[in-house]
C-alpha cells in the first residue's frame, strides 16, 4: 500500500494525470462530458487563485466569486458592446481584475482575520449589486449576450467544445505550474510565514502589506482568468455569475481537495463537479450533503484529501525509516522535505 502510494508522489504521476487529461476527449462518451470537464477546469483555475490568498497566505477572501464575475463581465462587455476581439479583451479582463484586486487589496488587507473576511463578503456583495443594478453598463438582470469565442487565428475553431477544452487545459497546466513554482519560491514561503502569524512574519523582516497585496492581486488575476475563459465558453453571462454561492462552492472545492496544497484545488474541483454531475438530483440539494461535509472536514480532516494523504505518507515513511539503512533514510527524508514543501 505504502509503495503504491509513494508512486503517487513521483513526477511520473503528474505526467500520467496530464496524459489522461490530454486523452480525455478521445475516451469521453460524448461531447457533453468534455464540456463538463472543461467547466471543471475553469473553476479549478479560479480555485487555485483562492488557494494563493486563503491557502498560502491564510486570508479568507469571500469576494473571490465577485472577481470571477468581473473577469467574465469585462471580457463579455468588451467583446459584445465595444467591439473588441477576444484576445485583447482577454488581456483587458486580466488587467481589470488585477487593478481592481490591487485597489480592493490595499483597503481590505489593512484589516485582520474576521474583519477581512467580513469586509470581503461585503465587497463581493457590492460587486453583485453593481452588476445587477448598473443597467447602463452591465445590462442588469438581462445579462450579456453574443460574447465572442476565442479567436483561433484561422487554425482552430474554439466554438467547438474539444478545441476549447484543450485551450482551458493549457491555461490550467500553466496555472498549476505557476503555483508549483510559487510554492517553492521565497515569495511562496513568505506567504506561508504570513499565514503562520503576522507578528512572527513581521519580526523576520517581511513587509506584510506588500506581500499580502501581491498575494491578493495574484489570486484575483487567477479569478479573472477563469472568469474570462468562462465567458468565452458559455458566451452568455448574467448577474448570477457574481452570486456569493460561487464563492462558497469554491471554498468547498478547495477544502475537500486540500487547502494550501498544489494538487488539492484540482482534485477537489474535478471530483466534486463530477459527483454533482453524476447525481443530477443533487444539483439543487447538493448543499445538504456538502454543508455538513465542510463542517466534518474542518473538524476531522482540515487539510483535505491531498493534505491528509501527505501527512499519512510522512508518518508512514517515518515509521519505516529506522528499519532501513542509513543511506536510504537520507533519501527518504529528502523526499519528505520535498513533499512537505509541496504541501
Amino acid at each position, binding site marked *: 500500500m505504502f509503495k503504491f502510494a509513494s508512486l503517487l508522489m513521483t513526477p511520473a504521476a503528474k505526467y500520467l494525470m496530464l496524459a489522461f487529461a490530454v486523452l480525455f476527449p478521445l475516451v469521453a462518451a460524448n461531447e457533453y462530458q468534455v464540456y463538463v470537464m472543461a467547466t471543471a477546469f475553469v473553476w479549478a483555475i479560479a480555485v487555485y487563485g483562492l488557494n494563493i490568498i486563503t491557502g498560502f497566505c*491564510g486570508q479568507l477572501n469571500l469576494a473571490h466569486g465577485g472577481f470571477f464575475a468581473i473577469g467574465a463581465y469585462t471580457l463579455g462587455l468588451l467583446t459584445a458592446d465595444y467591439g473588441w476581439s477576444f484576445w485583447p479583451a482577454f488581456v483587458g479582463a486580466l488587467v481589470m481584475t488585477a487593478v481592481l484586486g490591487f485597489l480592493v487589496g490595499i483597503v481590505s488587507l489593512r484589516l485582520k482575520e474576521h474583519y477581512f473576511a467580513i*469586509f470581503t463578503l*461585503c465587497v463581493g456583495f457590492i460587486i453583485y*449589486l453593481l452588476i445587477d443594478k448598473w443597467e447602463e453598463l452591465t445590462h442588469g438582470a438581462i445579462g450579456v449576450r453574443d460574447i465572442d469565442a476565442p479567436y483561433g487565428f484561422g487554425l482552430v475553431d474554439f466554438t467547438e467544445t474539444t478545441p476549447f477544452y484543450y485551450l482551458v487545459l493549457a491555461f490550467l497546466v500553466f496555472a498549476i505550474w505557476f503555483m508549483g513554482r510559487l510554492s517553492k519560491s521565497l515569495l511562496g514561503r513568505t506567504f506561508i510565514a504570513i499565514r503562520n502569524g503576522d507578528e512572527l512574519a513581521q519580526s523576520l523582516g517581511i513587509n506584510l502589506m506588500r506581500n499580502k497585496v501581491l498575494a491578493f492581486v495574484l489570486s484575483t488575476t487567477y479569478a479573472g482568468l477563469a472568469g474570462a475563459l468562462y465567458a468565452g465558453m458559455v458566451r452568455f453571462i448574467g448577474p448570477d455569475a457574481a452570486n456569493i454561492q460561487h464563492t462558497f462552492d469554491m471554498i468547498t472545492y478547495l477544502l475537500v481537495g486540500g487547502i494550501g496544497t498544489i494538487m488539492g484545488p484540482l482534485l477537489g474541483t474535478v471530483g466534486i463537479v463530477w459527483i454533482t454531475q453524476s447525481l443530477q438530483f443533487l444539483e439543487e440539494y447538493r*448543499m*445538504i450533503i456538502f*454543508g*455538513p461535509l465542510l*463542517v466534518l472536514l474542518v*473538524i476531522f480532516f482540515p487539510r483535505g484529501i491531498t493534505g491528509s494523504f501527505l501527512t499519512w505518507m510522512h508518518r508512514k515513511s517515518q515509521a519505516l525509516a529506522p528499519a532501513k539503512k542509513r543511506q536510504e533514510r537520507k533519501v527518504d527524508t529528502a523526499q519528505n522535505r520535498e513533499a512537505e514543501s509541496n504541501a
Partner: protein
Amino acid sequence: MSLFLQQIINGLTLGSIYGLVALGLTLVYGILHIPNFAHGALYMVGAFMSYFFMVDLGAHYWIAMAGSAAVVAVLAILCERLVFHPLRHSPPIHDKIAAIGILLFLEAVVQMFWGSDFRRMSSPFTGILNFDGLIIPEQRLLIIAGAFVLVVALQLFLRKTMTGATIIAMAQNRDGAFLVGIDANRVAMMTFAISGMLAAFAATLYAPINLVYPAMGHLVIMKAFVIIILGGMGSVPGAIVGGMIIGFAEALGGFYISTSYKDIIAFGLLVLILSVRPQGLFAKGAH
C-alpha cells in the same frame, strides 16, 4: 414634513430588526470570537418556523413566534455543541468555513421542504394608524415596540441576573471567568440560544411586512456584520446604535438618493469607515 417623518418611522423599523439580528451576532462574537456566518440562516429558519406554525398548524401569531424562538434556540445550541465546540482550538479560518457549511446546509434543507418560492406571512396586526397624515401600519409599530421590549429584557437579564452576569464576565475576560469557576460550556450554549431566539423574534416580527424565502437571510446577516463592525465587535450598545444608523441610512438614502441602490448604502458606509478606521468606529482596539 410628513414624508420625512414617514422615513423616520421606516428607519426605526429597519433599525429595530437589524439591531436585534446584530445583537445576537455580537453576543456570540463577544463570548467565542466567532463571526457566525450561519446567523442569517438561523434568522431565515426562524421565519420559516413561524410560517410553518401559523399556516400549517394554524397557531396564533404569538404562539408561532414563541415556538419558532424555541426551535431556533435548540438549533443554535446544536450548532455550538456539534460544530463550534469541537473547533474551539482550531485556527480561526476553520470556524468561519464551518459556519458557512452550516449556512449552506440550513438553506438547502429549508429549500427542500418549502421550495425557493417567495411566501407571504400574515399577521393579526393589519390595521393602519393615521396620525394627522402620518400613516403607520400596526405591524411597524409592533416591530419597534417589540425590539424595544426585547432589548430592555436582554439588558435586565445581562445586568441583573447571575446567569446574565456570567455571560458578561466571559466576554470581558475569559481566563478571569474560568478562575472564578464559570462553566464555559454553559455560557456558550446559553449565548447561542439567546442569539438564536433574537434572530427568530426579529424574523417573525419582520416577515409580515416582507417576504419569506430561503435566501432572505443573506442581506440581513451582511448588514448585521456591518453593524457590529461599526459598533465594535462584541459590544451590546454598539449593536443597537449601529443598527439604528444603518436603518436610518437605508430609509433616508433609499428615499432621497435611489431605491435600487439602497442596499449598497450600508456596504458603502462600511467600506468608507473601514478605509479610514480599520478597527471600526467605536472599537477601542482591534482584537
